[in-house]
């Protein structure tokens, strides 16, 4: 038999590589801006499009889906072709995939600052973009499986197992978490409400980390590390064990994001138990990587690419140990909602994803351009400033997390909170936030140096767009060749492999989601909880638009420090009309679940106009445009109808009088403000948001008043 000649498509790899660098710089720059907003409110730049609440999602989306996303596709398109000894299935699909993905990112860059968001973390994009993502993901899947089908290698290497698991699981996650009911082209409501919505969101959020930031990178590690170090993979058995254990266990761990919330206790405990069991499977990847370097450690000393890999793997090991620890209740009780979590995710993002991406770029670009790296010294500079940058970033954030976490829980002997004013704890950690932005700047400088270095490398070489290769065609499988090992057999059956991976991830998904989504006794109802009035509903949508939940949580956990500070702890039945839930995941400011009637309307008016007038030193941005912008009531009817479809009990025909009720309630608030010499017409946005804020937590408070 004659070896076949074919060509690897390097151009698509190069394109994804350039996109990785460009979006990486943009994403990190936005990150730096929002980091500075946390100690300098002026950095919000005085307009609504660049406030923290709106561009924090831009930062996370840009870094996760644009920077890491493009890097994944770069790594997969490079390694997949070589591991399968075949060109990508279709150049057209590759192109559609590339440009489609960039289109998704650009639409995120446009819609998020405009306040078009679902408020689901890491899934903020609205429904038309969700559909686009689904389509592009299918294109990617067809292209990948098409390549697998025309492969010239019988068995699938471990890297490809991870790619397959990534593909199926992300598809499942994205679809389930994006079930929305559109109200208009730019607005939709989540189908699930309250606790259920929270559970779905964090099942998604946690596994987006698992299957977007972890499994594809492990796959890339399994290809690029042995290539870079020229060493065999340490243990094939370990690969099998940790791959299956990882994808099976990871999917269960989502509820550890919801400890001490109103999620049923059994679901919380499952989340904790599976998080602990996740340590070893996660570490399997690190161990297999580091032990692959056995006998090549002298190379690490000289080769900056391997240095990046080693620090990346170590960061991965640290983050995946820290995660399970954070899921323990006792630690979670004060680490959750604090800067500790920000430190934790950045060890993973900057160390693991960032450094692995840089290593791959430094290794791959010179190869496809048939040249040497422009400057090894500059790459070395990048490594050191990047490492120091991570250190300067995470140490202050850990410090800030401990400080604020402890301050918020401290009581005086008289039994009152030592720091009853939340702001006091915020101001105490400002130096840490300043330091963190310095660390971030260092890291970004490194990336810019890399961009320059790679650009010069590209300029001095020339792209081998189609790299010639040859391999023997795959002979038909003979029955006589049957292998004994079951996994070996599985490795030559891609569809079976995909189906089994799918089943493995669905086990945890069903056990965790189904009871809470279907059994009503898991969410005890409360009679006094009523649907939002039309004005409150509009105010809630403004709250979502402004991204308030990026800094303010809406769930009081059952701790004495929280019930003293905020009021009675939250009950599952309070959230049944919350499409979507707005519990948030970080308390940069205080919780708002019991905000209703805590302050007078005038206080909220002044506070939104200029937070520092009511809370000196506050780091919240001004929201003065709420005073000048008119509330858009044209969608009220559609919104009420949509909510009714989702099960919110508005009386039949209520949508017709909804706007009349809205006007009436707005007048009342405007009149109330007028008493305090604040002149505002009742059709402004600020009236709606005050109505919503004054409603928060009132359903339960109303029950309580007779006691006093």
């Amino acid at each position, binding site marked *: 038999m004659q070896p076949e000649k074919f060509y690897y498509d390097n151009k698509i790899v190069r394109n994804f590589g350039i996109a990785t660098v460009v979006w990486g710089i943009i994403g990190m720059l936005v990150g730096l801006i929002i980091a500075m907003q946390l100690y300098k409110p002026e950095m919000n730049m005085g307009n609504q499009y660049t406030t923290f609440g709106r561009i924090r999602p831009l930062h996370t989306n840009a870094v996760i889906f644009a920077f890491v996303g493009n890097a994944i596709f770069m790594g997969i398109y490079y390694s997949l072709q070589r591991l399968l000894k075949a060109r990508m299935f279709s150049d057209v699909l590759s192109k559609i995939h590339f440009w489609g993905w960039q289109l998704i990112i650009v639409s995120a860059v446009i819609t998020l600052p405009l306040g078009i968001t679902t408020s689901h973390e890491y899934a903020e994009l609205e429904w038309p973009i969700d559909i686009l993502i689904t389509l592009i993901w299918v294109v990617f899947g067809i292209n990948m499986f098409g390549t697998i089908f025309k492969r010239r290698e019988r068995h699938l290497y471990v890297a490809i197992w991870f790619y397959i698991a990534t593909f199926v699981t992300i598809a499942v996650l994205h679809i389930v978490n994006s079930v929305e009911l559109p109200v208009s082209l730019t607005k939709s409501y989540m189908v699930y409400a309250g606790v259920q919505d929270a559970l779905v969101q964090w099942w998604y959020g946690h596994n987006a980390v698992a299957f977007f930031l972890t499994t594809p990178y492990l796959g890339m590690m399994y290809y690029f590390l042995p290539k870079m170090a020229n060493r065999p993979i340490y243990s094939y*058995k370990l690969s099998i064990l940790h791959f299956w254990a990882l994808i099976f266990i990871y999917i269960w761990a989502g509820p550890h994001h919801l400890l001490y919330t109103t999620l049923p206790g059994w679901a919380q*405990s499952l989340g904790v138990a599976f998080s602990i069991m996740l340590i070893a499977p996660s570490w399997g990847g690190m161990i297999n990587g580091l032990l692959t370097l056995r006998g090549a450690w002298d190379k690490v000393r000289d080769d900056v690419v391997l240095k990046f890999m080693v620090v990346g793997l170590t960061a991965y090991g640290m983050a995946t140990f820290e995660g399970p620890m954070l899921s323990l209740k006792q630690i979670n009780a004060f680490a959750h909602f604090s800067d500790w979590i920000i430190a934790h995710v950045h060890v993973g993002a900057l160390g693991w994803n960032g450094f692995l991406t840089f290593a791959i770029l430094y290794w791959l670009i010179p190869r496809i351009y048939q040249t040497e790296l422009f400057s090894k010294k500059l790459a070395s500079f990048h490594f050191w400033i990047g490492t120091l940058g991570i250190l300067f970033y995470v140490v202050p954030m850990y410090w800030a997390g401990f400080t604020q976490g402890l301050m918020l829980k401290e009581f005086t002997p*008289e*039994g009152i909170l030592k720091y009853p004013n939340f702001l006091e704890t915020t101001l*105490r950690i400002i130096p840490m936030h300043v330091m963190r932005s310095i660390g971030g700047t260092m890291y970004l400088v490194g990336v810019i140096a890399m961009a320059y270095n790679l650009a010069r490398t590209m300029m001095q070489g020339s792209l081998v767009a189609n790299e010639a290769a040859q391999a023997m065609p795959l002979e038909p499988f003979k029955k006589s060749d049957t292998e004994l090992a079951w996994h070996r057999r599985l490795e030559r059956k891609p569809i079976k492999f995909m189906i089994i991976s799918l089943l493995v991830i669905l086990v945890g998904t069903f056990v965790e989601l189904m009871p809470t989504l279907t059994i009503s006794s898991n969410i005890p109802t409360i009679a006094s909880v009523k649907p939002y009035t039309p004005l409150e509903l509009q105010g809630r949508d403004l709250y979502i638009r402004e991204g308030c939940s990026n800094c303010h949580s809406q769930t009081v956990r059952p701790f*004495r420090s929280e019930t003293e500070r905020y009021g009675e702890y939250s009950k599952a039945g309070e959230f049944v009309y919350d499409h979507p839930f707005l519990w948030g995941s970080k308390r940069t400011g205080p919780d708002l679940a019991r905000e209703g009637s805590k*302050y007078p309307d005038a206080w909220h008016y002044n506070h939104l106009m200029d937070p520092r*007038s009511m809370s000196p030193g506050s780091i919240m941005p001004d929201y003065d445009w709420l005073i000048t912008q008119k509330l858009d009531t044209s969608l009220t009817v559609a919104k009420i109808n949509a909510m009714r479809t989702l099960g919110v009990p508005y009386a039949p025909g209520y949508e017709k009088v909804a706007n009349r009720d809205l006007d009436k309630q707005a007048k009342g608030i405007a009149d109330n403000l007028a008493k305090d010499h604040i002149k505002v017409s009742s059709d402004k946005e600020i009236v709606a948001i005050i109505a919503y804020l004054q409603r928060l937590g009132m359903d339960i408070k109303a029950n309580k008043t007779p006691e006093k």
Partner: protein
Amino acid sequence: MRYLKGILLLGLVFAFNPAKAADDSLLPADVMNYIGYGLIVFTLILFVVVLLVVLRAFNVLTKVVLKSQGYTEEQIAAEMKPSKKEKKDNSQVWNKLLSLRPLSEEKDLLMEHEYDGIQELDNPTPSWFMFLFYSTIVFAVCYLLIYHVFGIGQLQYDEYKTEVAQADIAKKEYLSKQANRVDETTVKLTKDPAVLASGQAIFKQNCVVCHGQHAEGKVGPNLTDDFWLHGNKINDLFKTIKYGVLTKGMLSWEKTLSPKQISDVANYVKSLHGTNPPNPKEPQGIKMLDVDSTKAVTKALKKA
């Protein structure tokens, strides 16, 4: 070393006990922040320095050890650059612990397949790794049993009840030893300068945002004139501060200030009556005689 420890401890004290300094209010918050900046920079630099020192120490130590074993300078230099020659495999213990086979046996472990030049070894999964994996599984099972089968562990709502009950006992015990337990019925008017000074500090920190620097009134009413919305007796003031009057915009301070602090600030407000600050807000409420002071005056008159 002792100094280093001391500095680190100091850092820890600042980090974990941020309350201390503010409590004594010897230092204003922004000064504290600058100290914070300094400490963080210092710690980070220290961290880097320590790493460098350790690295250097290892190098020097290697030299010394090698010299004591009779190596010549050239041999040492050769040893220090191990990239030239593979080192002797003197890490048997380490290898055993990680269940690693010596590199020399690697050839036997190579599996027959390769992918784009990548080979795989048929190493077993390290035994310590399996131990770790199994023990986490045991932990997880025990965890679920403890919380959901045997009911030994408290789930969050029971945990909360316990926490609050314990805190209540501790609070009662503490307050029974304290004399400062005052409420709206027992609060006394006083002109004690210490009380007024404490009241002034509380006022500046919490009240000026709404009532103005000199209590002349801003969002909240003027507190220096003869007009009052919720009564002008010391007991009324105490009550207004403690529970708030939300419909009029007054917040409740019960959870923020201790009874003693409420009493102090109420007395301070009383002391401001008739101070005629600049830019007063227009009168709100009804005109009231200063009963407390009048009483004091009549008392004084009677005595005379």
